[in-house]
């Protein structure tokens, strides 16, 4: 922990970064909140433990943070993948961000550029947790009608607060299609059809781009497992196209490319 704080403080003091995005203790003992540290004295308040699950990369694209100057961001494995995906989508410049990578064992590593991030990410394990895999398998194993009913009940609890959108680092459109009302493409009402449409749109717009951070489900006040929709599509993109998001700085978006021999046994 000291390493993280002294590291942040040293970077700020040296003027290498203007702002450090990390975590602070939250409003109670079970929570952490994002911290935007711009002077060395505040750096002592940074923490990193298992309460720190939010993907902080989401703040990097905010105008206020961009205006602050070069940023350092405290990164778990998923946040590092987000940085690579941002680079692939031309959201951040190669040297705009210093990643402070914190591994599962608490080791703090400075990754000064995206090349270093890429090398670091390549060494990290990636995949579904046993819990996530079990939940996907359970849903897949349900008979069709029950599966539909289960999702209808789950998505029926959505009241369209769009916290999932706000928490997702890759839902960064300055004007979301959901907010377009002339013509109204996605209905605003939180009715069964509107909820289904919103959640399908969200999943599809992230298909092949989602870096598996799980911030969407984490942010959902109703505890709906919307992350599973993304995880399933992410797996499908790897199986069908061999493309995973957040592994490289190169643009390699599954739905913006194709191979003439992609499988098509489902097409008549």
């Amino acid at each position, binding site marked *: 922990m000291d390493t993280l704080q002294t590291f942040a403080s040293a970077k700020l003091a040296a003027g290498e970064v203007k702002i450090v995005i990390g975590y602070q203790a939250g409003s109670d003992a079970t929570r952490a909140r994002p911290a935007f540290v711009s002077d060395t004295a505040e750096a002592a308040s940074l923490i990193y433990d298992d309460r720190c699950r939010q993907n902080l990369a989401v703040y990097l694209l905010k105008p206020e943070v961009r205006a602050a100057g070069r940023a350092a961001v405290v990164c778990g494995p998923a946040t590092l993948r987000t940085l690579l995906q941002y680079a692939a989508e031309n959201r951040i410049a190669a040297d705009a961000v210093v990643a402070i990578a914190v591994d599962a064992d608490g080791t703090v590593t400075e990754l000064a550029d995206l090349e270093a991030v890429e090398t670091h990410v390549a060494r990290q394990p990636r995949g579904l947790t046993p819990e996530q895999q079990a939940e996907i398998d359970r849903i897949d194993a349900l008979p069709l009608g029950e599966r*539909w009913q289960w999702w209808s009940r789950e998505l029926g609890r959505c009241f369209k607060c769009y916290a999932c959108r706000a928490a997702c680092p890759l839902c960064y459109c300055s004007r979301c299609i959901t907010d377009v009302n002339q013509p109204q493409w996605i209905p605003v009402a939180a009715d069964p*059809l509107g909820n289904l*449409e919103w959640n399908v749109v969200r999943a599809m717009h992230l298909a092949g781009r989602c870096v598996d951070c799980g911030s969407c489900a984490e942010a959902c006040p109703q505890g709906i497992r919307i992350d599973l929709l993304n995880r399933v599509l992410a797996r*499908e993109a790897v199986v069908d196209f061999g493309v995973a998001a957040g592994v490289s700085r190169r643009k390699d978006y599954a739905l913006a490319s*194709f191979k003439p021999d992609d*499988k098509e046994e489902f097409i008549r």
Partner: protein
Amino acid sequence: MAEFEPKIVAFVCNWCTYAGADLTGTSRIKYSPNVRMIRLPCTGRIDFMLLLQAFGQGADGIVVSGCHPGDCHYTSGNFHARRRWMLFRRLLEFLGVDLRRVHFAWVSAAEGAKWAELVNQVVEDVRKLGPYREFPRRLAAADSRAEVA
């Protein structure tokens, strides 16, 4: 009670399937009238939301059809569409949508007979499945359905 007549919405490409369906007509091949065709510039233009909107407005089945790979008027629209459909199908399957209600096809401008055969088959399949009551409908669509029934 009269036999259930499924409503099928077909999203088709202007350059091949639409012309193919035209050929079906000019060849005087008779096929099921249950299909409502919507002509779009390219299968690459067919947003998955259009499919959901069709279901939401009362469709019981959907056909999406475009040019064979390599024949796209815009070079690669159908290749991109194919990838999108693969992921979309997986998502629908995971959500519990019956994939027998969503059909994808390549029908060229010369395949009038194939179009007739495809539509007839989809109509028969969906007729067996019955009306798609599980899918949430828009209010207005539910009203018009009541009128028809």
